[in-house]
């Protein structure tokens, strides 16, 4: 790529982020920090920040998010090893199971968890229903796969010979892991843990459906202040606190990654047969898969199959195709909503891929100038913001900015894939970066020295890595879009509902059929998303030249 090419890429990224993120969010925040006459007014900051309740909320948010992150990492890292580095029959199935929670609508997960942990559920005796612990468990349920996937993606390509060498020189398994594997994995662990932390600290419907223990979180408070009180100034203070959370966690993860970013010797995906020595990670993984992931999903599937008379059958599933639900005679069927969802998700994936590949390339380019390197760091932080900003802020923001500017555009539904692409962006960029960072720059240099043009260096050195990562990223982006609810519910046109929005609508009406259909639709959504993710993993070039 030439200098011109990089310039164009940066311009495109900045234009996209400015129009579809900075403008809407800025428009909302501006209303928050100005008074009715339009003059700057920060007095509310003082008032809100000196209230004890504000700090209770911030503290509670921090505790829940940290709990969710630590829990996800404890289960996610062993799972990364078992699912991506070892080989055994059923590994693919196990892996796809871990991916499903990621796309399930949180409202439905709430129902599943409550069915499990509620007083009449099989785990009711634990007394966890509607406690902070239940929320943390649900966060772990959602995010194990995120850690496993990102860490595993890197792990499977690590050159095994270094560890073998250490082992043959007498290092124990634990020592070899701590001194060789763990440092190599740190960028991926840091990046994914940072993401999980952000997800957890901005969880909204999850916290709500599981009973909003205590004073709630920053996110529930932003919703309350915006939706209930339309008090944008107070909401702006809480949004600002959220941004502080984002910046702090991004800074932390960057430091973690920065210290350890080394060009790794990457290989063809390498797997070894599972052995008896793997009992510890295997049992942790099995516990995570069976107890934390499968059990709630099983209760979901079981309830979706219940026919209302104590028996089981496919009644609810048949309704998905034939019935628009009671109280929905004029609406679409779930099958139609699924079709809408798939189309929107495909659009969102295209948009997201183009932008995030450009961003990942720009971010991983090694630059000499301090200024450029500083700019990279800023961009890196900036692209994480969509995760930390409340979806109510983004949703309302779209409405008061772009929508107000051109109502026709807003009603055409084009914002839905765009907003979904923005939401998926940080995640997708983060999944691309560890792999691209790991490209040894000496290869590029060598190629250049041997006379390859910049375009050719890009094509032959970066290209293969990128292609390998793209399938993964596409699957991820597709499934995030498929499950996205917050921003979509604001922007979807009423006669073009997506499946998650449809499910929530079904759940907002009484009647056994509506409830059954909602659960059946959630199961279908989970299955479709898992298939998309698995297909994504398979789209990659047949051979990648060995890098060593």
């Amino acid at each position, binding site marked *: 790529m030439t200098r011109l090419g990089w310039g164009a890429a940066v311009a495109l990224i900045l234009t996209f982020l400015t129009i579809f993120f900075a403008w809407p969010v800025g428009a909302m925040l501006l*209303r928050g920090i100005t008074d009715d006459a339009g003059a700057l007014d920060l007095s509310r900051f003082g008032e809100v920040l000196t209230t004890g309740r504000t700090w209770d909320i911030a503290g509670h948010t921090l505790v829940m998010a940290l709990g969710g992150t630590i829990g996800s990492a404890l289960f996610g890292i062993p799972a990364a090893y078992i699912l991506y580095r070892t080989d055994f029959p059923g590994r693919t199935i196990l892996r796809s199971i871990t991916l499903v929670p990621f796309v399930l609508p949180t*409202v439905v997960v*709430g*129902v599943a968890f*409550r*069915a499990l942990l*509620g*007083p*009449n*559920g099989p785990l009711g005796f634990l007394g966890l229903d509607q406690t902070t612990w239940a929320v943390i468990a649900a966060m772990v349920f959602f995010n194990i796969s995120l850690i496993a996937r990102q860490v595993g993606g890197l792990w499977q390509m690590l050159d095994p010979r270094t560890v073998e060498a250490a082992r043959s020189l007498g290092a124990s398994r634990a020592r070899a892991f701590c001194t060789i594997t763990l440092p190599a994995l740190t960028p991926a662990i840091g990046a994914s843990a940072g993401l999980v932390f952000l997800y957890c600290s901005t969880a909204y419907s999850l916290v*709500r*459906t599981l*009973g*909003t223990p205590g004073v709630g979180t920053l996110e529930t408070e932003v*919703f*309350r202040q915006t*939706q*209930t*009180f*339309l*008090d944008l100034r107070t909401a702006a203070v809480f949004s600002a606190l959220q941004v502080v959370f984002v910046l702090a966690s991004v800074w932390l993860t960057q430091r973690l990654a920065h210290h350890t970013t080394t060009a790794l010797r990457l290989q063809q995906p390498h797997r070894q047969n599972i052995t008896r020595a793997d009992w510890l990670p295997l049992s942790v993984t099995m516990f995570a898969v069976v107890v934390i992931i499968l059990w709630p999903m099983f209760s979901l599937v079981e309830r979706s199959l219940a026919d209302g008379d104590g028996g089981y059958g496919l009644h609810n599933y048949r309704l998905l195709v034939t019935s628009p639900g*009671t*109280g929905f*005679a*004029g*609406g679409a069927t779930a099958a139609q909503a699924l079709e*809408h969802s*798939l*189309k929107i998700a495909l*659009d969102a994936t*295209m948009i997201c891929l183009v932008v995030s590949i450009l961003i990942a390339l720009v971010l991983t380019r090694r630059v000499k100038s301090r200024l450029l390197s500083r700019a990279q760091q800023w961009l890196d932080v900036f692209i994480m913001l969509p995760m930390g900003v409340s979806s109510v802020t983004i949703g*309302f923001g779209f*409405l*008061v900015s772009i*929508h*107000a500017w051109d*109502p026709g555009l807003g*009603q*055409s*539904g084009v914002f839905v894939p765009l907003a979904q692409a923005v939401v998926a962006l940080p995640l997708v960029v983060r999944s691309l970066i560890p792999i691209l960072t790991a490209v040894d720059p000496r290869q590029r240099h060598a190629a250049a020295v041997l006379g390859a043009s910049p375009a050719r260096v890009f094509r032959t050195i970066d290209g293969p890595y990128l292609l390998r990562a793209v399938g993964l990223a*596409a699957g991820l982006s597709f499934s995030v879009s498929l499950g996205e609810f917050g921003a979509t519910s*604001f922007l979807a*046109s*009423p*006669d*073009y509902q997506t499946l998650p929005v449809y499910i*929530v*609508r079904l*759940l*907002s*009406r*009484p*009647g*056994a059929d*509506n*409830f059954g259909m909602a659960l059946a639709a959630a199961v279908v959504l989970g299955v479709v998303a898992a298939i998309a993710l698995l*297909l994504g993993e*398979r*789209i990659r070039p*047949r051979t990648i030249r060995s890098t060593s």
Partner: protein
Amino acid sequence: MKKVLPLTVAAVLGLAGCSVADQAPDADDDAQASVTIMTHDSFNVPEELVTAFEEDSGYSVTTTSPGDAGAVLNQLILQQDNPTVDGVYGIDNYSAETLLAEDMLTTHDVQLGSAEEFTVASDTDGHLAPIDHGQVCVNMDNEWFDDQGLTPPETLDDLTDPDYEGLFVTTDPTASSPGLAFLVATIADQDDWQRYWQDLLDNGTKVAGGWSDAYYSDFTAAGDGEYPLVLSYSSSPSAEEGRTSSILGTCTQQVEYAGVLADGANPDGARAFIEFLLSTEFQETLPEEMYMYPVDDSVELPEEWATYAELAEDPITVDEAEVADNRDQWLTDWTEVYENHSS
């Protein structure tokens, strides 16, 4: 070979034009004047009726929906100076006065007929047309009370009675519209509502995040829950075939209105749409489509509704002006009572 399938799938999907672009309005819409209505997210109307309206009136209709009734109000206020819609449907009696105070609506000039009895008291020149109504009521699990041989509660006061300890689940008034309606009802009904809520919470009342959580996770008759009393609507029993019924002494009125935006591009189109909302054809669909009762008293209710969806004759009534003035303070006070109780 393995790689061929997914690649093909991706290529076919991409090439088949699977894209939201097919959402674009029909080409012939451009020839017609269009009217855009903002509605709450429960708005549903059979496709045939909309088509008939479009043919009769010559307007093509677009609806947008930012969320529940509260979100509709917020969005109207946010776009006050530059409304993107011509009319609004779904403002309820808890936000009616707030919207009227914003002075964004113009008169609808529609004959209300029997809908007249549901108009907002202060709205004498016709800015908000009542479209449908319903009641928020405590619902009970009939079978549960039969099995326990327990006489069901009848009033709001009964809910604090130790006999009914730990039986009632309501919803958060700061986050759900039935919850707000119930809070307002307790304020209208009780001399010292904060004391009442203390007693209610002391009596083991649970506050769920939203209607679905309460109804499908906590209520005994619809989910696996533990609570045989749930805050819901007078219409909900119509979907439960006699398993549940409303406790009429706890019911409070809810009315939904439509209005015309003064600065909208097509106020006449919005007026025509309101007329359509009040037509017999549309009013007949209300129970099935939106779980609300028609304001047109000549429209007959469906059979299950006539049997199960009983309305209280003398519901707890709401003073819209008082709600508009005090709503935020009430919610803040309620939050304090609730959080002090749970901590």
